[in-house]
C-alpha cells in the first residue's frame, strides 16, 4: 500500500538544525501535541463530531442514524425519517463527521429554492460548517460547501460549472423530487459523481414502487437490480407478500427511517377525523350537471379536465367558475355553450358553501389557531372573505413567498390572526408548532402531501395533541380520492414501513 508523506517538516528541521534555530516555544510545542491528541480519531467506528457540536442538542435517534449511515451503509443512504425528526441535523452530523475525519472536503447540497437560506444558516450556526448559498456568479471553485437550488443546478451554465468540480459528497433535500427518471434534474444528478451521497425525504414512495426503484438507482445503481429485473420481480401487477418483504429488506439496507414513536421522545398524538359533508340540493344539482359535461362536449372529453372541474366544484364555486369560464372561451357549439352557461348561472346563484360552513363549525369548536390547506388560490381568497364576514381574521400563505415574507406571515399568525390559509405549495419550509388544528379542505391525490402538511404542525416542539380534519363531500370524487389515498398508504407501508396516521384508520 502507498504511504503518503505530507509536510515540509523534514527540510525545515534540517535547516534549523544547521543554523541552530530559530527554535519554538516549549509551551506551544506541548500544546500542539495535546491538541493533536485531543482531536485524534482513535477508532474506525464511533462518532467524533458530537463533541465539537456544542450548539446543538443531538437526539439519540439522530446520532444512531448518523452512525448507521457511516458504519453500515458506507456513507450512501436515504434518510427517510418521518417529517419533523431532524433529517437536516442527521445530514449535518454525517457531513461533519466525514469532514473531521478528513475524508470529505467539498460538499454540494441541492435543495428546493425555498430552503436554501435555512440550510446555510443551520450549517453555519449549528454545525460550524462554512456553507454558502449559490447565487448567480458565485465562484463555486472557491467554496468547499455550497448550497444550491435544484432548479438552478440542473440548468446551463450552472450544471457545467458543477461538473467541473470534484465533490466528495452530494446531499439532496426533498429528494422525492427526483422520483421521475425522465426529468432534467434526475439526469443531472445521475451524471454527478457520488462518492458519498445522502438523499433526504420523508416520502420515498408517493405513488408507486417504481419511485423507490429510481431513487435507489440514483444512490446505488444495481442495488434493486436493473429496470427489467426489478419490473419482473416487483411490478405491481403481481405483488406477492414475499416479494414485498424482500423488497423492504433491500430498501432498508440503504435507508434509515425513524418513526416518531421509536424516537423515545414523548410525542403528542394525532387525532385524525374524516368529516363527511352533505351538499345542499342546489350544490348537488350543479355538481351533477358538471359531471354530465363529458357527454355534452368534446372540450370536456379529457378525463383530466373533468377531474379538475369536479375537484374544484368540491372546493368552491369561485375555483370552478374560473376554470369553466376559461373553457367557454375555447369555442364550442351553441347548444354546448348554452349548457355551460346554464351551469355558470346556477353556480353563481349558489349561496351556501357547505364545506365552508363546516370549516366555520370546526373553527368555532376548536376555539384556537387553525391552519386550512386548500389546493386552489380562488378558494383561498374566498375562504378569507367568508371567514372575515363571520368575524374571523386570517392570513394567507403560499410557497412562493420569500423567506422574509414567510417569517412575517408566521409572525402574524402567531400574534394576530386565528387562521392561516395555505395553498398546497405552502407545505414545505414553514414550521408552526404553536398551532394544533389542521383542516385539509381539499384532499390531494398524494398521501405524502398530506403528511407534509401535517408535519408543519406535528413535529418536534409540539406540546399538545394535534387535530386533523379531512373534509370530503359525500358521493363525489372526493370519496374516490379518499379510497385511493388509502390504498397508496398501503403500498408505502408494505415497502417502506408504517406511517403515522394520515387518514382515519380503517376499522
Amino acid at each position, binding site marked *: *500500500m*502507498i*504511504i*503518503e*508523506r*505530507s*509536510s515540509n*517538516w523534514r527540510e*525545515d*528541521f*534540517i535547516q*534549523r*538544525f544547521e543554523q*541552530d534555530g530559530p*527554535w*519554538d*516555544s*516549549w*509551551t*506551544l*510545542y*506541548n*500544546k*500542539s*501535541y495535546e*491538541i*493533536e*491528541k485531543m*482531536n*485524534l*480519531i*482513535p*477508532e*474506525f*467506528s464511533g462518532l467524533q463530531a458530537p*463533541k465539537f*457540536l*456544542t*450548539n446543538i442538542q443531538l437526539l439519540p435517534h439522530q446520532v444512531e442514524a448518523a452512525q448507521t449511515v*457511516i*458504519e453500515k451503509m*458506507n*456513507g450512501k443512504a436515504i434518510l427517510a425519517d418521518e417529517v419533523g425528526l431532524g433529517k437536516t441535523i442527521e445530514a449535518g452530523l454525517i457531513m461533519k463527521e466525514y469532514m473531521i*475525519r*478528513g*475524508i470529505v472536503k467539498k460538499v454540494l447540497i441541492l435543495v428546493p429554492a425555498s430552503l436554501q437560506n435555512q440550510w446555510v444558516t443551520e450549517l453555519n450556526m449549528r454545525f*460550524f460548517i*462554512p456553507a454558502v448559498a449559490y447565487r448567480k456568479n458565485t465562484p463555486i471553485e472557491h467554496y468547499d460547501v455550497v448550497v444550491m437550488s435544484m432548479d438552478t443546478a440542473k440548468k446551463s451554465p450552472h450544471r457545467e460549472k458543477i461538473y467541473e468540480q470534484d465533490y*466528495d459528497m452530494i446531499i439532496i433535500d426533498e429528494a422525492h423530487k427526483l422520483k421521475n427518471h425522465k426529468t432534467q434534474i434526475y439526469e443531472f444528478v*445521475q*451524471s454527478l*459523481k457520488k*462518492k*458519498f451521497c445522502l438523499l433526504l425525504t420523508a416520502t420515498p414512495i408517493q405513488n408507486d414502487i417504481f419511485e423507490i426503484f429510481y431513487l435507489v438507482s440514483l444512490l*446505488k*445503481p*444495481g*442495488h434493486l*437490480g*436493473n429496470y427489467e429485473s426489478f419490473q419482473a420481480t416487483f411490478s405491481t401487477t403481481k405483488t406477492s407478500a414475499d416479494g414485498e418483504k424482500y423488497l423492504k429488506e433491500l430498501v432498508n439496507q440503504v435507508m434509515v427511517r425513524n418513526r416518531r414513536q421509536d424516537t423515545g421522545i414523548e410525542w403528542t398524538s394525532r387525532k385524525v377525523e374524516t368529516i363527511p359533508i352533505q351538499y345542499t340540493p342546489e350544490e348537488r344539482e350543479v355538481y351533477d350537471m358538471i359531471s354530465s359535461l363529458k357527454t355534452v362536449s368534446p372540450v370536456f372529453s379529457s378525463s383530466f379536465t373533468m377531474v379538475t372541474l369536479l375537484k374544484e366544484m368540491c372546493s368552491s364555486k369561485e375555483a370552478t367558475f374560473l376554470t369553466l369560464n376559461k373553457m367557454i372561451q375555447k369555442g364550442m357549439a351553441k347548444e354546448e355553450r348554452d349548457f355551460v352557461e346554464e351551469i355558470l348561472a346556477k353556480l353563481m346563484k349558489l349561496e351556501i358553501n357547505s364545506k365552508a360552513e363546516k370549516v366555520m363549525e370546526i373553527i368555532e369548536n376548536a376555539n384556537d389557531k387553525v391552519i386550512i390547506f386548500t389546493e386552489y388560490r380562488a378558494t383561498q381568497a374566498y375562504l378569507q372573505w367568508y371567514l372575515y364576514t363571520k368575524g374571523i381574521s386570517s392570513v394567507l400563505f403560499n410557497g412562493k413567498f420569500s423567506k422574509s415574507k414567510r417569517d412575517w406571515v408566521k409572525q402574524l399568525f402567531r400574534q394576530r390572526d386565528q387562521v392561516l390559509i395555505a395553498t398546497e405549495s405552502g407545505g414545505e419550509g414553514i414550521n408552526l408548532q404553536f398551532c394544533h388544528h389542521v383542516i385539509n379542505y381539499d384532499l390531494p391525490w398524494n398521501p405524502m402531501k398530506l403528511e407534509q402538511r401535517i408535519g408543519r404542525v406535528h413535529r418536534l416542539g409540539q406540546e399538545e395533541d394535534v387535530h386533523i380534519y379531512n373534509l370530503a363531500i359525500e358521493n363525489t370524487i372526493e370519496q374516490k380520492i379518499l379510497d385511493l389515498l388509502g390504498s397508496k398508504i398501503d403500498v408505502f407501508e408494505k415497502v417502506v414501513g408504517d406511517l403515522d396516521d394520515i387518514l382515519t384508520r380503517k376499522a
Partner: protein
Amino acid sequence: MYAEQVHDYLKVFFKETNCDILSDEGYMLSVQLTTDMDKRIMNRPFYWQYIEATNSTPNPARLNLITDRAKIQNQFMGEIIHFGSGRLHQIFKATKELGSFVKMYQHSNGNKGKQQMLTPYFCVNYKVSYYCDQTKEVIYSLGINLINGEIEDNFHDFVSQLDLKTAIPDDHFCLQYIIKPGRALERLDSMIQNIIQNDDHSWAEEAKKRWQKELEVLDFFYDGMEDKPESYEIEKKGLKDRFNPRIKVEIINGGLFYLH
C-alpha cells in the same frame, strides 16, 4: 474542551505569543493581537497586502473573545469562541505552526557544582492516518538516542514530565552526537514504516471487500449493455475514491533534547 479549558488555553496561547491581554473576566478575554498573530488567525490577507503595499501604519485587531456565553447578557460584546468554532480552529493551527521545532535541555535541582553530562536525543511526533471510507489515527512519539541509536516510543510523554529549558544549565556539557540528526530522522522514518507494515491491516481488506461488493452491484445494473454510459465510469470512479485504502504519515512536531 469545556468553556474553562478553552479560556485557560487562550490565556496561555496569547501570553506565549506576546499578545497583550487587556482584560480577563474569567469568561471573556480582551486581547490586543500582534501583527504576526493578526496575519495568522484573522483571515484578512487583503488588508495586510494593502497595508504593506501602501506602507500604512498597521492596525492589528483587538479581540473580545467570549468563552462562556452563559455568563454574558449581551452577545454583541464580542466573539463567542468554543470548541469547534472556526476561530479556535485557527488558533490551533497557529499553535501547530509556532510549536514545531524545539531544542531543550534538562535541568535538575541536585548536584550543584558538579559537572554533568547531557545525552542528545532526537524526537519526532508522528500522526499516522488510515483512510478508506472510514478513518483511524494513531500518534507515535519516537525518540532516538543520538549516541547509541536506541529508539523509544512514547518519548513525548516522558520528556513532558521533565524540567526542560531552552538554555543549557550551568556546569553541564553536552555529549557530541554520533548519529547525525538528518540520519536519525531517516531511521525514525523507516521505523514508522516498519510499525505500519507490521500493523493489522484487516481494515484495508474489509474496505476492499466492501468496494468489490458495491462494484458487483454496479456491474449488474449495467449488465448486458454494449456501450456503457458515462455514468458507469463516473460511479466506478466514485467507488474508488470512497473505498481505496490509503495511509498518510504526518509529522506533528519534533526536536532535539539533551537529557541526563
